[in-house]
């Protein structure tokens, strides 16, 4: 029972049933550095990740 998270060109497989925040912590991605979206809609990080779904993470850090 897994789901997929993407960030730029990277793809991560996580267990479904955990929250977005837990998944980010597991992947060592600071939650402050991304916005999670499901089917184009923004979701808060307490959302449970459903089986087989795709959560697209949008990086918010820019610099130079």
């Amino acid at each position, binding site marked *: 029972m897994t789901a997929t998270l993407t960030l730029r060109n990277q793809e991560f497989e996580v267990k479904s049933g955990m929250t977005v925040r837990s998944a980010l912590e597991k992947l060592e991605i600071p939650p402050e550095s991304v916005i999670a979206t499901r089917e184009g809609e923004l979701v808060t990080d307490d959302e449970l990740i459903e089986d087989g779904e795709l959560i697209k993470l949008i990086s918010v*850090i820019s610099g130079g």
Partner: protein
Amino acid sequence: MKCKKCGGKAAINMRQHKLALCKEHYLDWIPAQTQRFIEKYKMFSPEDKILVAVSGGKDSLALWDILIQLGYQADGLYIGLGIDGGFGYSDKSLRFCQRYADRHGLNLIVVDVGKTYGSTIPQLNDKTPRGKEKPCAVCGVSKRNIMNRAARDGNYDVLVTGHNLDDEAAVLFGNTLNWLDRYLLRQGPVLEAERPGLVRKAKPLFRFYERETAAYALLRGIEYIYDECPHAVGAKSIYYKEILNQLETKRPGAKLIFYLNFLKAKDRGLFAEPVIESEALNTCTSCGQPTTSPAKCAFCRLVELPTPD
């Protein structure tokens, strides 16, 4: 998580404010807060003619959008840096700015560095060891010069940039690590036009986290360049942001407190104006802009360097 205002499904949670909002209320909240900051920090008034520096990124296009929504008269300034990076970075950035301007019937001023000054930013970087080591520093010198000139020549009352809290906190972090007192003294949401030839500058988004400006752009449907500037890869500012975000994760509000308490400390006189800070500015003998140099400003000296073989 529910929206604090209506109980609907929240689109964003701002842990530092203990505030979650739905799309509709978030899109009301951001412009209202921006207006509050414009007034609180006396940035500009509705009568002022504003020039917004737009890069095609989320922050500057969000800022332009917010100012127009709030009823300000704001033109855009795009500086074509001539950076390609294998995917036409600058050309792509311009297209996002132009598309936004066209869709909203706004005026976009475009200054192409290569065509105007004879060298693109990558070519300027190649001229100096500093440019090869720190391409963002050369780019910064160039943009500051060009922005001030465009604002001055166009008789704008204020030049505004899309700097967010993360940008400001990262700069503060770097300046504090190195105790760069002169830079600390000058950092703030408003830079007054203290010398002739300098245009007033303001950063209306300086209290929003980068995550919040990105959320605003996404929720408003603003199309922006998502690719990172190829020159910014490995930049210190990004490294500092990552460190600050680690702090923020453990301690919500850490970035905001770090920056706002710095401003309060400055107001209390922690960073007293040193005597050397009052040194006179001269006028660049080439472009006529203010400079601490006795002859030509740093940007003109850079432009006039010979092109390497």
